[in-house]
């Protein structure tokens, strides 16, 4: 991997780029750049069509859309798990988190994180220590020896987050990671994710179908249409009236959905 170790350079959300370019580039290169991305599994039925999206390094963008708008497909394309049918995809190395924590049930929480380190080539001597640090970052200090079934849903998702962070990739793709959690836990994890995002300086692309979640977390909210998925509109959360924004986005989302009503 060529990316700079994100764990040591806390770049925050503004200013310097994380790109290891010796010359200061005037406009920073986006961490993720999508141009005209299309994907069809069945010919003639595109899931994604002409998706254009730039995500700046260190940015937290929420991708919002109804079911079947290809949000997950888009994440898979960015992660390199699926190839786009058309268009160009440029992304820094990305880690991916799912709605389910998908911890390996035969390993303890600590070992799950260690496995990610091992597959990245971290020497054995450092793995344990590093895994403990990462678990401590997600506030699971005592849970290293617990197995997935001994942890609550929220704790599992935090282990999954630690595991994703262990990959040391600049970009973190999150596919509705909190959708299956109860409201109290989800609320806490929003705070938690934000804190970790700030400490690690990762670029986050967060997929959700929950408008409030998108507004709560994102610096930018990007609305995707359904069948085919395409960027319809986006909002820069800081520029908007925080009170009215969720309602406004919901209206647009509903409009998108009702287009399919015939």
């Amino acid at each position: 991997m060529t990316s700079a170790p994100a764990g040591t350079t806390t770049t925050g959300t503004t200013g310097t780029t994380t790109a290891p370019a010796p010359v200061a580039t005037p406009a920073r290169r986006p961490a993720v750049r999508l141009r005209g991305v299309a994907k069809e599994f069945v010919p003639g039925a595109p899931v994604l069509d002409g998706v254009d999206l730039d995500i700046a390094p260190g940015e937290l963008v929420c991708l919002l859309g109804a079911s079947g708008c290809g949000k997950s497909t888009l994440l898979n394309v960015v992660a390199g798990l699926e190839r786009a049918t058309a268009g160009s995809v440029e992304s820094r190395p990305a880690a991916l988190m799912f709605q389910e924590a998908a911890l390996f049930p035969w390993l303890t929480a600590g070992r799950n994180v260690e496995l990610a380190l091992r597959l990245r080539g971290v020497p054995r001597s450092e793995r344990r220590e590093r895994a403990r640090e990462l678990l401590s970052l997600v506030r699971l200090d005592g849970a290293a020896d617990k197995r997935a079934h001994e942890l609550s849903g929220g704790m599992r998702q935090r282990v999954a987050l630690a595991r994703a962070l262990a990959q040391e990739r600049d970009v973190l793709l999150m596919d509705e990671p909190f959708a299956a959690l109860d409201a109290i836990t989800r609320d806490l994890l929003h705070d938690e994710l934000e804190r970790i995002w700030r400490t690690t300086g990762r670029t986050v692309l967060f997929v959700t179908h929950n408008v409030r979640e998108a507004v709560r977390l994102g610096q930018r909210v990007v609305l995707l249409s359904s069948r085919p998925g395409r960027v319809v509109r986006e909002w820069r959360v800081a520029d908007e009236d925080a009170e009215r924004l969720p309602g406004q986005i919901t209206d647009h989302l509903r409009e998108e959905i009702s287009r399919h009503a015939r």
Partner: protein
Amino acid sequence: MPADTTAPDAPPDPGTSAQGRVPRSPDLAGVEAGLDALQTQPAPARRGRAALSRLWPPVLAATVLLVVWQAVVWSGVQPLWNLPGPRQVADAVTSAAADGTLWEALSTSLERGVLGFLAAVAIGTPLGVVVARVRWVRVTFGPIVTGLQVLPSVAWVPAGIIWFGLSDATVYFVILMGAVPSIVNGIVAGVDQVPPLLRRVGQVLGAGRVAMVTEVVLPAALPGYLAGLKQGWAFSWRSLMAAEIIAVGGSIGFGLGAFLQQGRELADMSLVLTAILLILAVGIAVELLVFAPLERAVLRRRGLQAETAS
């Protein structure tokens, strides 16, 4: 608000902090720790009593069977030489133990059964991984392996005798033909049941072809593999008995199958029942002492153990 809970490196960027994004609750860690504690319950203390409560029902069932057996014998529907009672069989067991034939038969068969089973594991495991993971092998050989599992392994005894004569090779050949397909099928079933999501996680974590098999697919398939091993052992043991009953003499030693066959030739029903009970006892002992604990341990570690109602 205590300053130490806010991220020290939160940038004073008006573009982002204008939303009041500084952690609102001063003690997020505390709330989270409380929630974690609420949402996880300590594992219930078990063992000891649980083991005891698992033990008595089968013991009771065996006792009932013994009583019924004795009752039938007492009713006199069959002469004692045709249907010996528990008492006569117990005598046969003690005398066979005293003259050493019991131990000889038991050790010969156990040794062969275990060796044959281990050989079947050594052959079946890599074979199973290949069948499960390589598409064309699966398409071509998969149905044949499944078919072989249906074929009773006794059917291989005549072939074995023709090829290898009355030797240990025949016995091992029959064991392998019986056990390898079960083990292969166990692995294939285990691999098929690996949740696709776990493979995707492996892919996301950057596992290559080899690491995907060793770190993700095989550990995930372990419960299915264990079930295959268990069945493989059962098939080994059965195949062995079939081979020993049919192929007697030559350089083949005296195993439980031969012991059983001898009872038949002597028309000694007590001896026949003794052999049957021994064969059964070995099967139960291996299940209870080897496979059941192994399976329990694996399932419990994964939180898959069904809580048995006591």
